[in-house]
């Protein structure tokens, strides 16, 4: 492949056709995942990040659907594949981990069977014994103790952390090129979260796969991502390499997010919050979607939607004020981190 990118999303539009109107969940998202890197997609709940992931995996449910755009994976446009072609890719080349490990595993089937199923669907289990052996091997790799015994356990018999490890084993067993993790640690304790993130990073580095992590938690991003996309109201508002983003956030929304991270030693009385609420996606404001909450917004911001502009080598921001003196302020916000 000529491209260095494993996955390229071009101008993706996904909408939910509700009874009350069309909800534009994803608005012209461009997102690229280089080979072998961990990319984060950050935003508040309801900003369209999960819809983006589901669009890639074709897991959108009625009444949501992709309106336009291309999702190129290894040169193939996933949106135009037949169901059969897509099935061959999902699980083998792209796999996905979900937020809630309790409900994402089928409660009435043994976890070993559920992992093994991935092998069998793709015709990669020569024999029953071999399949089982592979599953147990995978369980050991993701750090499930007593892997042999766990093979025939049911989901309700495992802890949340173990269940998420099972999910990872299921997603990783065919060594996919891309792993999409939708809020993989949100339902877990903080200590377990760190373990799971470390595991994902190690596995990624070992196998050279790319990961797209979807989260609302900047801590998770800081922990393992190399490149970050920030999403707001269905738009990508900023994307940059991790250190760049944390040190010099350009978009006021990103700055707000950074500022609202509680810090040890900081005064909890003065924890920063972004004023206002996420706009209703049914009635997006004209112009910049963040203009309603942005303290620096001007007349112009409320009229026209700014383009994503390049502010640095690999840093883009959807703000008219992205270049210029604002970056200094960004430095001030970023200070104290890293």
């Amino acid at each position, binding site marked *: 492949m000529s491209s260095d990118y494993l996955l390229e999303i071009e101008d993706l539009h996904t909408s939910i056709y509700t009874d009350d109107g069309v909800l534009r969940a994803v608005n012209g998202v461009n997102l690229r995942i280089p080979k072998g890197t961990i990319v984060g997609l950050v935003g508040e709940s309801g900003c369209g990040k999960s819809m983006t992931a589901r669009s890639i995996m074709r*897991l959108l449910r009625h009444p949501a659907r992709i309106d336009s755009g291309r999702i190129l994976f290894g040169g193939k446009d996933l949106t135009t594949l037949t169901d059969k072609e897509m*099935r061959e890719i*999902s699980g083998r080349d792209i*796999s996905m981990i*979900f937020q809630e490990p309790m409900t994402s595993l*089928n409660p*009435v089937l043994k976890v070993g069977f559920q992992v093994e199923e991935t092998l069998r669907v793709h015709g990669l289990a020569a024999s029953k014994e071999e399949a089982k052996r592979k599953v147990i091997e995978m369980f050991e790799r993701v750090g499930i103790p007593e892997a042999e015994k766990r093979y025939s356990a049911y989901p309700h*018999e495992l802890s949340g952390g173990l269940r998420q490890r099972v999910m990872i084993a299921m997603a990783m067993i065919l060594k996919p090129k891309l792993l999409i993790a939708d809020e993989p640690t949100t339902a877990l304790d903080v200590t377990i979260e760190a373990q799971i993130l470390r595991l994902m990073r190690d596995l990624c580095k070992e196998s050279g796969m790319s990961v797209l992590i979807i989260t609302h938690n900047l801590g998770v991003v800081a922990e393992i991502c190399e490149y970050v996309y920030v999403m707001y109201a269905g738009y990508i508002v900023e994307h940059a390499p991790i250190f760049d983003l944390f040190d010099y956030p350009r978009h006021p929304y990103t700055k707000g997010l950074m500022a609202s991270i509680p810090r040890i030693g900081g005064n909890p009385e003065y924890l920063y919050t972004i004023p206002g609420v996420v706009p209703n996606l049914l009635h997006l404001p004209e112009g910049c979607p963040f203009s309603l909450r942005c303290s620096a917004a001007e007349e112009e911001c409320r009229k026209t939607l700014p383009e994503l502009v390049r502010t640095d080598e690999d840093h883009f921001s959807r703000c008219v004020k992205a270049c210029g003196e604002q970056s200094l302020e960004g430095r001030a916000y970023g200070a104290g981190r890293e």
Partner: protein
Amino acid sequence: MKSVMKRLIGMIPVFIGVMLLIFVLLRVVPGDPVQVLLGEHYSQDTIDRLTKAMNLDKPVFEQFLLYLSGVFHGDLGMSYVMKKPVTSLIMEALPQTVILALMASTFAWFVGIGSGIIAAIKQNKAPDHIFMGFSLAGISVPVFMSALFLQYVFSFKLKLLPLSSDGSLKSLILPAIALGWNSAGSVARLTRSNLVDALQADYIDTAKAKGLTNRAVIFGHALRNSMLPVITLMAIQLSSMMSGAVVTESIFAIPGVGRLATNAIQTRDMPLLQGTVLLTTVMVIFGSLLADILYSVIDPRIRREA
């Protein structure tokens, strides 16, 4: 196994309650059973002898105990009218009813679950509305109506199947459909609603993300989860099926237990009525036990808890 034992022990009070209720109910019936038995011509002496023979002179509580011990020895008394042991009458009739109920259940399972699945997959589309309309009509039609309708269409108009039972399996097809119709309706409705719920579950996304075909997702993942309440329903349905058997057996002239019950009512044959009600009730109780066992086989969460 432990849980099954527990269930079995839990059934004992219910079982005794059932017998007590039947006993008490039929004890308050006016009209001395001796009179029913003897007809019009009798002497005081005969009455006394018979009363003694039937233990009717003993205290009510003792009578109940005697009845209980009789039941446990398989002795349900003598039919007043047919002058035969109730147990043997019921045993003769039972196979017909069991075959009928099995055929009806099979029909209800296949048609009910099948149309429930189709309706759930085609949710809110034409097949869904059609099947659900039919199933609501199914549960709104009394058994005697569907039986007469089937008789009219398939026996009288099309001359495909016999009008009444001659003991052959073929002659039981129409009665089985008439009897299973109701259950098929409720099974279809429950299957649909549960499958629709199950298809919304997170693990369905997981299964799809693995690259499973729609068929594998539905049959391998969703259906198994949605079948649990349907199994319970089938056990409950067994009770209404026994009620329905009374009607179908009477319309199609099937010499089964339901027919015995109707005859017993019409001829005021108390022991026979007692026996048939007791037998059908016991069948219902064991049906629900069976459902519980099946349930725990399918759902690992319950198995481990017990």
